[in-house]
């Protein structure tokens, strides 16, 4: 029940993304950008409903994560037991238990078929769907003002593929989660609410997309120096950031999937602390660089803090949460500058906020996790840890478990390589099906009318001129 309410909040984040992106783009593309952010929600869900959920969580019950963590949602989940992977595990009786040493894909629950119609499965389906939509929306920000509408529509249907495969590896009991059990890498890839699975993946896809689609006309002058193309409505951007921060309270605490888990209040406090230190970190970074406190950068700072705390939120103590946020805030300012200077045009800083800070979030679990929480995570209970600390919770570098940090770095490398490859290939391929970039003069005149038929801010006498008929 708690997961549902949290899911509502995460769904509402779509509005936040829409506002931030529309505010940071020019008025002539307002209607196109908001329509893109609007339609990504149905398109993404459609893909998730048809094939996404099955691929990601089909084999969930056999994965190491199953027994410990999701018990709260009832036995119904046992039905998600069909998948494909390497090194099939045969139980005592030799019969293939459907579990794999290295799970890669789930194969149960396409179209939410009646075979999986159980209350618990529905909740997971809903929760993971809104998470997936967050990833789907991130690239629209980086590729706004020049992305052709038809290409965007097929992207919307495709996005569930890379997301769900990777989600299977980390959350669906796939080989990254089993890294702990198989290769003794701490608790395997630990990502409480999705810094890696959702944000880093979204940022990397945005990176690939921005590269393929190229910078906006007028973004770089002849000497390649970036020109400022400010958006058209800063108050909308600030409102969008607040909606995102509000939704994020559903994002992190929701991932406990059970309202009963008292750990939630730590998660909430960590999330808030990271968001405020993120904004202040960005402010300090701007101050050092001698720049004025540009509201859109402050917003990016808060978002960066939130993105970074998403993975470690349940495992770290409050002071660590604040530090992760501050680092993310500073990191994002330099990342935005670096990316702009390196010729990649990203209207809203999605690559720096979600990509860079997403990876930082994943790594920070491996550094700051204090072992109070996450005992038996990913099915890993190491006796020596239990002896040393009384319980084998998720521990970071500072708390004596170096192998966890290794697992996290593995997670980062995999998400970068896998995400970038899939996305780059897809954008190149889709470019052949229907051109990814709008024609030159459409981009100049503004995408609203040619692409979606209605100007963003019409409101002037639209006239059918009598004269033309007589003249």
């Amino acid at each position, binding site marked *: 029940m708690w997961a549902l309410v949290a899911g509502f909040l995460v769904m509402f984040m779509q509005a936040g993304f829409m506002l931030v992106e529309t505010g940071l783009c020019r008025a002539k593309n307002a209607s196109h950008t908001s329509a893109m952010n609007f339609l990504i929600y149905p398109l993404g869900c459609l893909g998730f409903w048809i094939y996404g959920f099955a691929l990601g969580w089909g084999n969930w019950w056999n994965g190491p994560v199953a027994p410990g963590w999701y018990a709260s949602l009832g036995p119904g989940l046992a039905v998600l037991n069909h998948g494909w992977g390497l090194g099939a595990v045969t139980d005592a009786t030799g019969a293939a238990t459907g579990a794999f040493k290295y799970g890669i894909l789930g194969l149960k629950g396409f179209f939410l078929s009646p075979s999986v119609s159980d209350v618990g499965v529905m909740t997971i389906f809903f929760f993971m769907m809104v998470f997936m939509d967050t990833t789907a929306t991130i690239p629209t920000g980086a590729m706004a003002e020049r992305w052709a509408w038809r290409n965007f529509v097929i992207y919307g249907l495709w996005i569930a593929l890379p997301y769900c495969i990777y989600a299977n590896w980390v959350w669906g009991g796939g080989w990254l989660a089993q890294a702990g059990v198989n290769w003794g890498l701490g608790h395997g890839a630990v990502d409480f609410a999705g810094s890696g699975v959702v944000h880093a993946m979204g940022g990397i896809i945005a990176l690939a997309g921005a590269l393929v689609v190229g910078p906006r006309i007028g973004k770089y002058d002849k000497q390649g120096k970036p020109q400022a193309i400010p958006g058209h409505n800063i108050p909308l951007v600030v409102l969008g950031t607040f909606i995102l921060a509000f939704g994020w309270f559903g994002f992190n605490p929701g991932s406990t999937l059970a309202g009963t888990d008292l750990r939630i209040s730590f998660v909430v406090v960590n999330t808030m602390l990271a968001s405020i230190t993120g904004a202040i970190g960005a402010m300090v970074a701007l101050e050092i660089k001698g720049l004025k406190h540009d509201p859109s950068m402050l917003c990016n700072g808060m978002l960066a803090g939130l993105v970074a705390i998403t993975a470690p939120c349940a495992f770290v103590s409050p002071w660590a949460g604040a530090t992760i946020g501050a680092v993310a805030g500073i990191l994002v300012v330099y990342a935005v500058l670096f990316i702009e200077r390196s010729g990649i045009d990203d209207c809203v800083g999605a690559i720096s906020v979600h990509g860079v800070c997403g990876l930082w979030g994943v790594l920070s679990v491996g550094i700051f996790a204090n072992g109070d929480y996450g005992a038996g995570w990913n099915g890993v209970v190491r006796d020596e840890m239990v002896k040393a600390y009384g319980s084998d919770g998720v521990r970071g570098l500072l708390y004596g478990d170096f192998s966890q940090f290794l697992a996290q770095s593995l997670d980062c490398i995999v998400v970068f390589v896998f995400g970038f490859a899939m996305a780059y290939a897809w954008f190149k391929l889709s470019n052949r099906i229907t051109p990814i970039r709008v024609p030159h003069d459409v981009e100049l005149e503004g995408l609203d009318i040619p692409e979606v038929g209605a100007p963003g801010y019409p409101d002037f*006498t639209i*006239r059918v*001129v*009598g*004269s*033309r008929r*007589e*003249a």
Partner: protein
Amino acid sequence: MKKIELSIRPYRVEAVIAELCREGVPGVTATEVRELRRGVSEHIAYRGVEQEIDLLPRMKLEIVLHDDLVERIVARLLDPAPGARANRDEISILPVVAAVRIRTGEIDEAAL
């Protein structure tokens, strides 16, 4: 050639422009302006403070015409001025030295 300038209430724009087109005017340029006419003001109440506003939103039309058309157009503009309230619109007529059609570079009169 002359340039006729007049500013009218925004809602009259469609009607006036349709009229002008029917008269065969080559083009019209409309600009949202705020106009102050002595004696014309609107009353607003904002957070309990009542106030007269003088600078009222109008639509300024600019039409570049050959001299012969000017008389006819001005006449057309005068009679169709509907609207119950006292209409104290005014038309200013400015001389235009030359008009050049960019694409073909034709100079002067021919441009329109």
